[in-house]
């Protein structure tokens, strides 16, 4: 069974997912970061595939992408680095990146290699729903990679239901109308939005992301969702402490209690 689906069957509250950019801070940090994140007790990791022009990202993730590309990160290397990832990592693994690099790599070849390495799902913020349905849905299903859609405070209700019907793992609830890392608090208005979406009783779990940066915002986001995703704040933490393992341990324990620690 798909590990991401399995995760939500076992755990429907306070799922913590952490995003990092592959190739940052160092070209070969990928496996170390994954291992440390698992050890610290996160439930899911989003591995960012750096792109030269990340339109939906704020300065922190832009910077990490720029550094990663300068370090020499590319898709072949990422798949090479994560070839044996499932010998060590049991938590849910999601890839995240923009469409153009996937198009150049070949969407089918990409999905095939992602599946071989044991990735569960893929987030492509600039892949439109229509293009997914028309051109790529069959390929995603063939390789059993779940496509994760985003919804925002502005997404109309009918569209949310359509996205729910097309989704089969979780839905990424963008907490605010902004780029990543643009906001660092969760307002009452945002809580109302989370509540509104929860009231739609969708078949897919909801993970909130964008602007979740610490324990307080994580808890607020989790109050009406199944969990939350932290990106920019984690990248910042990696940048500030050169001891990656320690930085990760400190960061994750500042967000959640150590009671759910995995092996």
């Amino acid at each position, binding site marked *: 069974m798909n590990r991401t689906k399995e995760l939500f069957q076992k755990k429907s509250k306070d799922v913590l997912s952490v995003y990092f950019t592959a190739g940052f801070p160092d070209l070969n940090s990928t496996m170390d970061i994954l291992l440390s994140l698992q050890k610290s007790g996160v439930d899911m990791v989003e591995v960012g595939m750096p*792109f*030269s*022009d990340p*339109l*939906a*990202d*704020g300065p922190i993730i*832009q910077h990490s992408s*720029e550094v990663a*590309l300068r370090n020499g990160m*590319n*898709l*072949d290397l990422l798949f090479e680095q994560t070839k044996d990832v499932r010998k060590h990592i049991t938590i849910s693994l999601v890839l995240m990146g*923009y*469409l*153009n*690099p*996937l*198009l*150049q*790599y070949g969407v089918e070849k990409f999905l095939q290699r992602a599946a071989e390495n044991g990735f569960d799902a893929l987030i492509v*913020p*600039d*892949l*439109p729903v*229509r*293009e997914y349905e028309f051109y790529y849905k069959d390929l995603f299903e063939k390789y059993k990679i779940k496509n994760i*859609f*985003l*919804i*925002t405070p*502005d*997404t*109309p209700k009918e*569209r949310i239901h359509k996205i729910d019907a097309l989704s089969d793992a979780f839905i990424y609830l*963008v907490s605010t*109308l*902004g*780029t990543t890392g*643009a906001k660092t608090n969760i307002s009452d208005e945002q809580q109302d939005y989370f509540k509104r979406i929860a009231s739609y009783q969708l078949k897919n779990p909801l993970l909130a992301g964008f602007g979740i940066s610490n324990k307080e915002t994580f808890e607020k986001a989790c109050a009406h969702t199944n969990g939350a995703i932290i990106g920019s704040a984690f990248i910042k933490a990696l940048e500030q402490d050169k001891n990656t393992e320690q930085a990760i341990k400190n960061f994750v324990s500042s967000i959640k209690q150590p009671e759910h620690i995995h092996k």
Partner: protein
Amino acid sequence: MSYHVDEFGYYGNFGGAFIPELLYKNVQELQENYLKIIYEPEFQKEFTNLLHDYVGRPTPLYLAKRLSEKYNTNIYLKREDLNHTGAHKINNTIGQILLAKRLGKTRIIAETGAGQHGVATATVCALMNIECVVYMGEVDIKRQAPNVARMKLLGAKVVPATCGSKTLKDATNEAIRDWINNSQNTHYIIGSVVGPHPYPDMVARFQSVISEEIKKQLKEKIGKENPDAVIACVGGGSNAAGAFYHFLNEENVKLIGVEAAGKGIDTGHTAATLAIGTPGVIHACKTMLMQDVYGQITEPYSISAGLDYPGIGPLHAHLHETKRAQFISITDEEALQAAFQLCKLEGIIPALESSHALAALEKITYSEQETIVINLSGRGDKDLETYMKQMNAQEEKQTHLQNQ
């Protein structure tokens, strides 16, 4: 063959709207309303009046006698350089500001390369009393300083884009991010036939006034509406789209788009997208673009800030693929020489961008009887510094040779 967008915003294999969900509402609103709004009689009246009284349209179609003599054919220049603000860009910004007002937007953002689109946007924002923010690459801010000063005088805030090559692509990224962060009150006035559907089609329609006028003017001057060829430079491709528009289905009119070769298409310092690009997605649009094998967008180069873009409008990618138009490329050096030639033969200082179109005369074949229209997209005031530098270098070289 259709050269117009289908219901999903595609020209053949190119186009679409590859936007993050964060922009869905804004883009959807535009897609659903742009045609309805711009063909309302009230809109058309306001648009046409402003183009006439404020912009100064119609722009002349001028028979360039000495240039024609030199090339032994009949060359007409469509004088978009005589528009208010000095380029074709204002045709589009007038249209989009009227649209933005009808959509109830209270803030305008734009990207700019040469600064002509930034100036044209700042101008219409002043005219309509709307807040204006223009993103411009740091490199372009330096090489197009007069336009930065003009934007500031007109009340716009100019924000430098400091990532990547610090040119038009990066300014566009910043503008899109601003739009994501301010989608509720902001309209993004894209300056060319690029970006997500409906922008390529919408901008082409606003610019189509260029070919509409060419037809009328040619009829008056030579008794027939169609020239044998239309030549225009292509950055994103808006002036070319406007100059080609009403000839797209006139298959006997040759359409020639001119890209910037920079230092040469094989040098790694070029902006000739169709010459070296491959299909992909840039700025939410499926089109041809310059990229590496991993789909990272590569940094373009051209002496001309307005052509220094690694993509091209989806209409042109389609015209290229279907061979409806021919695309050639012109180097920095060739463009400079064409600019100097126009100054001396016709007393017109062209923009560096437009000089690429002029230089095409050296590259294409034509006969004595033909009527060729070159779209002179802008005037050269903004490029004086570049021109002077080149002129001084040439003079020095000559003195040096004479002294030997």
